[in-house]
């Protein structure tokens, strides 16, 4: 048998480059480059590995602005066979539910798939909700926090990292797995891969192509609404020590340790 695989990826700001504005307390995003969400690279690596073992095709999909095409080309350089960009003004402002609806509809229109993989969460939103929500909308069997997998023709044996230790599960196909970085070491793009990526055609789908209505996607289709955004309040009186004062600062630390009966 061959395996039809899909990987859900997200383009995120390179968090190592993000700096804070000390005055405003907001993020400085200008000049920050975008990368594929790191855990999505583990998902892609696993998908490419499975397709090599069984034969098959790896489709990467992402919802985002037109720049997200770069992330898809990078995924092709890393071994994906087909890339789909879900881009439409109507998709803007989507919460995890409205995002999942678009991703699920795409899987339905371009599948069927045997295994869908995604990073456990993205470094920017960090909700970890889209993977499980897509699985539920598709009726796929779901496994989360996957740190080891062994795919077979009927299902996948997984080890999931949970608070108590390691959970061993059997997940029948079709399934969606969200993965952790212990799963594998993502490869670097090959020269041949980069060449392929440059020439690759990216399939672009929007609202009309997916047959969705405006009311169900983007901000309009999102059950949640942002009420306000604020920078956290400062509640502590900070005693600040530097340079020659440091010895006094260390005295204060010793006092605190004594008060707490630590020493």
């Amino acid at each position, binding site marked *: 048998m061959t395996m039809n695989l899909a990987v859900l990826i997200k383009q995120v700001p390179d968090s190592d480059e993000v700096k*804070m504005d000390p005055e405003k*307390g*907001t*993020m400085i995003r200008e000049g920050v480059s975008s990368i594929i969400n*790191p855990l999505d690279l583990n998902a892609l690596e696993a998908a490419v590995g499975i397709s090599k073992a069984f034969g098959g095709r790896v489709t990467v999909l992402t919802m985002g602005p037109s720049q997200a095409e770069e992330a898809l080309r990078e995924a092709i350089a890393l071994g994906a066979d087909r890339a789909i960009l879900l881009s439409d003004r109507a998709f803007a402002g989507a*919460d*995890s*539910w409205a995002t999942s609806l678009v991703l699920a509809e795409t899987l339905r229109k371009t599948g069927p798939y045997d295994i869908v993989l995604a990073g456990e969460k993205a*470094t920017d939103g*960090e*909700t*970890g*909700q*889209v993977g*499980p*929500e897509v*699985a*539920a*909308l598709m009726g796929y*069997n*779901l*496994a*989360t*926090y996957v740190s080891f997998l062994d795919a077979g023709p009927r299902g996948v044996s997984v080890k999931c*990292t*949970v*608070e*108590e*230790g*390691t959970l*061993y*599960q*059997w*997940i*029948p196909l079709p399934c969606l797995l969200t993965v952790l970085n212990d799963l594998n070491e993502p490869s670097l793009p090959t020269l041949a891969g980069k060449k392929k990526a440059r020439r690759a055609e990216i399939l672009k789908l929007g609202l009309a192509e997916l047959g969705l209505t405006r009311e169900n996607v983007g901000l309009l289709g999102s*059950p*949640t*609404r*942002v*009420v*306000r*955004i*604020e920078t*956290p309040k400062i*509640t*502590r*009186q*900070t005693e*600040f*020590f530097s340079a020659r004062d440091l*010895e006094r*600062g260390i005295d*204060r*630390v*010793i006092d*605190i*340790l004594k008060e*707490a009966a*630590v*020493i």
Partner: protein
Amino acid sequence: MRKEDRNFQGILVFGETRSNKIHSVTYELTGKARNLADVKGCEVSVLLLAESLRDDPSDLFRFGADKVLVVQDPSLSIFNQGIAVNVLKAIIEAENPEILLAPATTIGRTVLPSVAAMLQTGLTADCTGLEIDPDSGLLLQTRPAIGGNVMATIKTPVHRPQMATVRPKTFRIPAPRNRTGTLIYPTLPKETFSSPIQSIHLQRAEGDGGNIQDRDCVVSGGKGLRRPEGFRLIKELAELIDAGVGASRPTVEAKWISYPHQVGLSGKVVAPKIYLAAGISGAVQHLAGMQTAQKIIAINKDPEAPIFRIADVALCGDLYDILPRLIERIRVERCERNG
């Protein structure tokens, strides 16, 4: 589901059990749900799933529950997401809660989004604040957003239930009160307890210095250590004051230290007596994971580091100068005390 579809009322807490015992986060969320319910004037129900519960579920009444629903079945001996989703969905459809709270544990973060998608409602992950909007009566859900450097407050205006997950240790367990409630063992159809997914085995982890969430002191290191070996200095100080070892997300991503040490919303939320952060600048997602510590000591060479703004004591300088001096001073104090 939308608010006009049914008569949605009350708050349901999706409690967590481990090895047939009620996990402490269940008490934290029950207490928080009670506060919210008092504002709304509604009831708090707590759902527990277990093979055969060993703790007394009626204990939850003293922490704010009006009703405790205990679903017991042999299939619940090891967590199975398929079955847990079936059970929670069945209980929601019977109870019609207006608000659903769950712990942001691996279980909650797997089951809640699945159920939210099926019910077509909103879900906010890893909330650090929950309150009731006095005007609309809606649940205001606050969480770090955009890379964790700002706080976003989110509401779910028309979809029901309004759903949120909360990290363990975010809210304190309230003092127990003398109150009582109704204990129910719901009967669910047999097929609720079957799933194509097979949970084969749970291998419990060997203690890796214990859970940092249970320690009185936590000493954490960040990228300011500049190299993985820097954690030796962190561990040396931690051992000296019997502290847990914590770490920032970038150091875990760089594999300088393992994931169980990660402090922050993407790792563990801690609330120790003393939190000492060395070489951590303080992204909000990290701060949200330790800001309820009683005393915060921060060491950083950047005077503008955000962590200094929430620290009680800020030591601005090279951690490779300050930490050895601090370690030496603690040793001297110990010696003087001992003789």
